């Protein structure tokens, strides 16, 4: 899914002359070398000064540029709030969320990012679940004015159909809402579970499509699964639509380890999820 970043940026830069890309020190991680080959003059590296970066991009946006910036949002919340969201500037923030950066450890695992970004007025929040959706989110971000946060995860292959609220698997006992990198695990859990599980993927967390969420939920008992804190993330966003939801997610900090081992440890692997869908 991460590859969608460099692929979409090269494509978008062709259509949006205002597009400018900012990076701290992770060009390789984001695959920006390809973008640099084509649009080197539109790529700025600013080093490990995340707070500074979030404000510098606002200066670009004030002059009509459209910055795409790669940031761990918890490192620069004040600047995102005051210099991007208060003036409602056209800045697109891209980050990696969840346990994907497993071995990097607790400091680099963004597990509260959605909560932080959802709380900000003017900010939109996207959590795509595969490459195609990530491509689509990047295009949506460019097409719509205003600040947004795109939360990516390490996902291979295709899992979803398109951006929005989508039923990935039909079921008649329980309804599970899921986002981003957890879609694969939840689909597996649905197979393992004794219950008939309906799986609903939500890729736009703000503004959330309440009508579609309520329609999917029907009278079923609802769950949410997210590789994010159970506070302020997908579960709370779905509850905000008026549902009662049992939230499965992170209840503390992460730690170092392979992502699949960490999911197992925190009960966010297919078996763990299936067990809890009671």
């Amino acid at each position: 899914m991460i590859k969608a970043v460099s692929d979409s940026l090269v494509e978008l830069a062709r259509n949006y002359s205002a597009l400018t890309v900012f990076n701290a020190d992770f060009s390789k991680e984001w695959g920006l070398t390809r973008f640099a080959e084509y649009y080197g003059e539109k790529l700025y590296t600013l080093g490990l000064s995340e707070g500074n970066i979030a404000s510098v991009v606002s200066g670009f946006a004030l002059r009509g540029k459209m910055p795409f910036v790669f940031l761990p949002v918890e490192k620069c919340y004040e600047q995102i709030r005051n210099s991007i969201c208060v003036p409602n500037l056209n800045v697109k923030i891209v980050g990696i969320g969840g346990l994907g950066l497993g071995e990097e450890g607790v400091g680099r695992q963004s597990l509260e990012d959605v909560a932080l970004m959802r709380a900000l007025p003017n900010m939109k929040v996207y959590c795509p679940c595969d490459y195609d959706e990530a491509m689509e989110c990047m295009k949506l971000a460019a097409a719509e004015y205003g600040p947004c946060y795109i939360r990516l995860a390490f996902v291979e292959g295709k899992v979803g159909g398109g951006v929005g609220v989508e039923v990935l698997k039909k079921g008649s006992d329980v309804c599970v809402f899921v986002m981003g990198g957890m879609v694969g695990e939840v689909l597996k859990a649905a197979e393992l579970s004794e219950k008939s599980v309906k799986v609903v993927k939500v890729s736009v967390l703000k503004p959330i499509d309440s009508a579609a969420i309520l329609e999917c939920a029907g009278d079923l008992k609802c769950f949410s699964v997210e590789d994010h804190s159970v506070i302020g993330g997908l579960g709370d966003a779905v509850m905000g639509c008026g549902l009662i939801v049992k939230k499965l997610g992170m209840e503390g900090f992460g730690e170092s380890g392979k992502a699949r081992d960490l999911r197992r440890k925190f009960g966010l692997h297919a078996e763990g999820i299936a067990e809890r869908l009671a």
Partner: protein
Amino acid sequence: MNNDQLAKKSIQVRLDVLTSAHKVGFGAVGSTMSVVEILVALYYAEIGGRKVVQIDAAKPGCADRDYVILSKGQAALAQYAILADLGFFDKSELDHYAQANALLSSRPTGKIPGIVGGCVSYGYGLSVACGLAMSLKADRKSNRVYVVVVDEELQKGQIWEAAQTAAHYNLDNLVLFVDKDKMQVDGAVKGVMDVDCVQAKFEAFGWKVMKVVDGHDFDQILQAVVKSYTISRRPICILCETVAGRGIGFAERKAGYHDVALSAGEMSEVIPKLSHLI
């Protein structure tokens, strides 16, 4: 405008600031007084027949406009008084400073005519200015960016992140004024957290620093600005020694007046004195 006229403008700005702050019972008059001459020099003075800062209320978005970022947001009233005088909005707006539903917020925001972006909190204005200056360079424009910080802002790390960014990108279109009024809310800056050796610090970061011994003397301020035109490939810092509460005899260098409005008794003492000077 000659120095005598500039001095009279400064008195008028002081009168407007004191009156508005008194009317609403809110303001940071001691802190605002120190920056008046810097702002008046920027907005009114001419060098070689050309205004230092090119802005026009009739054409606020014109291509050759310059930018003023007041990172020292607590002194917004002084900037508002000037912008009202320049015709960006009606002077009566000053009477509702920082009140509900008013145009003029306590610190500058982008909603106010004449303000770009705004600085609703301290410490990030220099980063925004870097972004503006970098984007101007990217577009091969010669517009200039002026940013005003107060010395206590130098306690904040982001200032130095921005300082290295400005030097790294050779932002010779960026001029930073440091209003060294030596006073902050809790008392003398020296006592709270010393920010001494400002010149050596900025020089070590690769900046050209010019010292203005009296930051209330238009000749000295403008001389530094003229010199800044000759600097290339380096950002410019104009370090102004100023006096907190300048122009209000009993409030000069007093921490107690840093972030307050004057009382009726104090107003009756200072207003006739200042009015007499116009």
